[in-house]
């Protein structure tokens, strides 16, 4: 007798090289087996024509708790995550106060556990109070549960501080995640610098802002032999630099956000503030370079940079609006376009949202191996639905995909063997 039996789905578990139609069964909140099951189950889910995979991991999420809970709190963020098939999120430290000491790490983890819908792994700040001056206590932060370090939202702009951060973190094999943006080139900018920014008369952010900081960081990574991860890569030049660094054998990795491989700067031609984020939507050439990076493996991870904002912070004109869009609930359908376009196999695509980030951050999730926590996503890759921002589980309404048809729908999300999301409903 097992607790849950997921029958006849196409089980894709890239960590264990599984892609076949079979069953997954669960006992005591853990995966008890993958294969052909015979016996009884308390609960049976018919997964015929559906895909069964490990719960997705989104390693780049901004929740606004503590400090700005009206934008998003851990509860609403958790609900948005499981609605998107995501069972583990790594949260960026730019809260208020920011995650720069162990107490806050423990606090946000405890809060997520209490809610019990989604695993939360904090990414702690590199510098105290995100000021870019003094390093945080990375040893203690790591012991408390921080899985990586980043000042995301801001770059670590000072080259000397960055060098020290890479030296110190690499002494203990920690990962530094950089929001690569040379502010001296992007100050005041709202969208990509180019023909679109010129037509709108809106100050742009040139690709060199991203590219030049990555170039600097790769040099430092080479000297220090550190682990360096580029957040939300968005330019052709950045993808090329990361590819070359990897060919050289440096431990440089990167992630792409769905909006950067699905959309271009043309989205803001009507001054749409819901398509404003940092780094901004770029040109078609950049978009195709990001897709090529995903195809050839330069970009190992898909992560959303989920950034909920209150409407007041978006409804004030493009150049004044806050940066960021929500992404947890659209990550899977938008990413599935890569499979449909023949860029990635279904297994390789799922790997970028499961075992690849798990490996990068040493997380136990992202695998259906026997004995692992039964965090599972079950989706219909062909189901079509129309995104309505008013129906999002996130408190954020800031999405550029409002009103557009999504292909691919999460039907069930299981966390520790419990069905926490089922056909549009969250089971608290």
């Amino acid at each position: 007798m097992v607790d849950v039996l997921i029958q006849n789905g196409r089980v894709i578990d890239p960590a264990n090289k599984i892609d076949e139609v079979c069953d997954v069964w669960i006992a005591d909140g853990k995966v008890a087996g993958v294969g052909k099951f015979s016996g009884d189950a308390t609960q049976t889910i018919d997964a015929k024509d559906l895909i069964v995979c490990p719960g997705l991991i989104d390693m780049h999420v901004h929740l606004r708790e503590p400090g700005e809970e009206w934008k998003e709190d851990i509860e609403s963020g958790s609900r948005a995550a499981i609605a998107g098939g995501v069972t583990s999120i790594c949260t960026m430290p730019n809260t208020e106060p920011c995650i720069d000491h162990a107490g806050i790490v423990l606090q946000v983890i405890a809060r997520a556990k209490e809610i019990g819908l989604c695993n939360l792994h904090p990414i702690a700040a590199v510098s105290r109070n995100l000021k870019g001056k003094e390093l945080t206590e990375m040893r203690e932060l790591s012991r408390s549960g921080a899985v990586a370090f980043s000042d995301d939202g801001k770059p670590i702009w000072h080259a000397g501080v960055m060098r020290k951060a890479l030296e110190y973190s690499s002494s203990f094999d920690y990962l530094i995640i950089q929001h690569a943006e040379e502010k001296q080139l992007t100050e005041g900018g709202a969208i990509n610098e180019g023909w679109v920014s010129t037509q709108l008369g809106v100050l742009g952010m040139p690709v060199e802002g991203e590219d030049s900081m990555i170039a600097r960081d790769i040099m430092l990574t080479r000297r220090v032999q550190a682990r360096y991860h580029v957040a939300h890569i968005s330019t052709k030049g950045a993808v090329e630099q990361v590819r070359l660094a990897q060919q050289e054998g440096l431990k440089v990795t990167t992630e792409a956000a769905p909006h950067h491989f699905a959309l271009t700067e043309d989205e803001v031609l009507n001054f749409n503030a819901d398509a404003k984020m940092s780094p901004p939507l770029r040109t078609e050439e950049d978009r195709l370079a990001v897709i090529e990076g995903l195809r050839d493996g330069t970009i190992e991870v898909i992560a959303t940079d989920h950034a909920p904002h209150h409407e007041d912070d978006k409804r004030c004109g493009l150049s004044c609006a806050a940066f960021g869009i929500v992404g947890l609930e659209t990550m899977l359908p938008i990413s599935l376009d890569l499979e449909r376009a023949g860029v990635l196999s279904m297994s390789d695509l799922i790997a970028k949202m499961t075992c690849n980030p798990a490996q990068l951050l040493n997380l136990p999730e992202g695998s259906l191996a026997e004995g692992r926590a039964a965090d599972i996503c079950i989706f219909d890759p062909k189901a079509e639905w129309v995104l309505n921002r008013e129906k999002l589980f996130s408190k954020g309404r800031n999405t550029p995909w409002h009103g557009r048809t999504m292909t691919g729908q999460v039907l069930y999300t299981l966390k520790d063997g419990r069905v926490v999301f089922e056909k549009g409903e969250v089971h608290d």
Partner: protein
Amino acid sequence: MLKPLFGLKHIFGIADLNREQITSLVNLGDDFIDINTRSVKKEPTLRGRTVINLFFENSTRTRTSFEIAGKRLSADVINISASTSATKKGETLLDTGQTLAAMQPHVLVIRHSVAGTCEFLSEFLDNTALINAGDGSHEHPTQILTDLLTLKHNIGDVAGKTMTIVGDIAHSRVARSHMLAAKIMGYKVRIVAPKTLLPAFVENYDCEIFHDFDEALQGTDILYMLRVQTERLTTNCCFPSIREYHETYGLNMKRLKAAGDHCMVMHPGPMNRGVEIATDVADSMKSLILEQVEHGVAVRMAALTALCGGATEE
């Protein structure tokens, strides 16, 4: 509801207008010039209409121009100056727009430092026509219509003529709107500036680009001098000094003569005498600058009439 003329619901920018609409607005403006020179400068065209001038940026000229335009056509004109900083905290731009729209004016004339302000507000305001009186570095359509009316009077058809725009193209809504209008109306635009004052891919406007002012003079029919924001110029490293600016891009008599006798001078105002334009040039026979100001009122009368002067629709 009023039935707007020329198929115009709002006037956001030249980008949204077609040739017929531009020509109609300019010609209607032409018809209004005469009112402005009479001793009794009042017509009942817009009686019972309410126009609100909502200016978030200081601009006495443009605001006054709209105010006089409305009043001469008997509209009730209300001026509101809102500072951008005051709207940042507390009441938002949207609140201000919605509050004023709730008072049911026919037209809101808006000047704001944020590009796309009218486009943004129009999504939330249903029954109010909006006129963009300048939004950031984006567009300034009534200035361009004004210039076209002045050119109609002084050189006739603009098609095939060459306008040379000199100065801070990167931050100029006037330059952008002219480059768009040039494509529609068939005139050519040359732009003259160092790269620090040019926006990305400006060549996509099909304009000719010059860094050397003197090279651009030959074959120019209209010299269009942009106002220099003296504070911005040096602090942003866009230019080393005002002195060097005047030397390199200022219009003096020598340059005006080199351009040829047919060449006219325009400026959207207000001028910095001795910076982008020498005093003797500004006051010369070739200068159309005061005529632009005069025609500005006529064109704004046309714009207001187009949006709220039509017959009432049941």
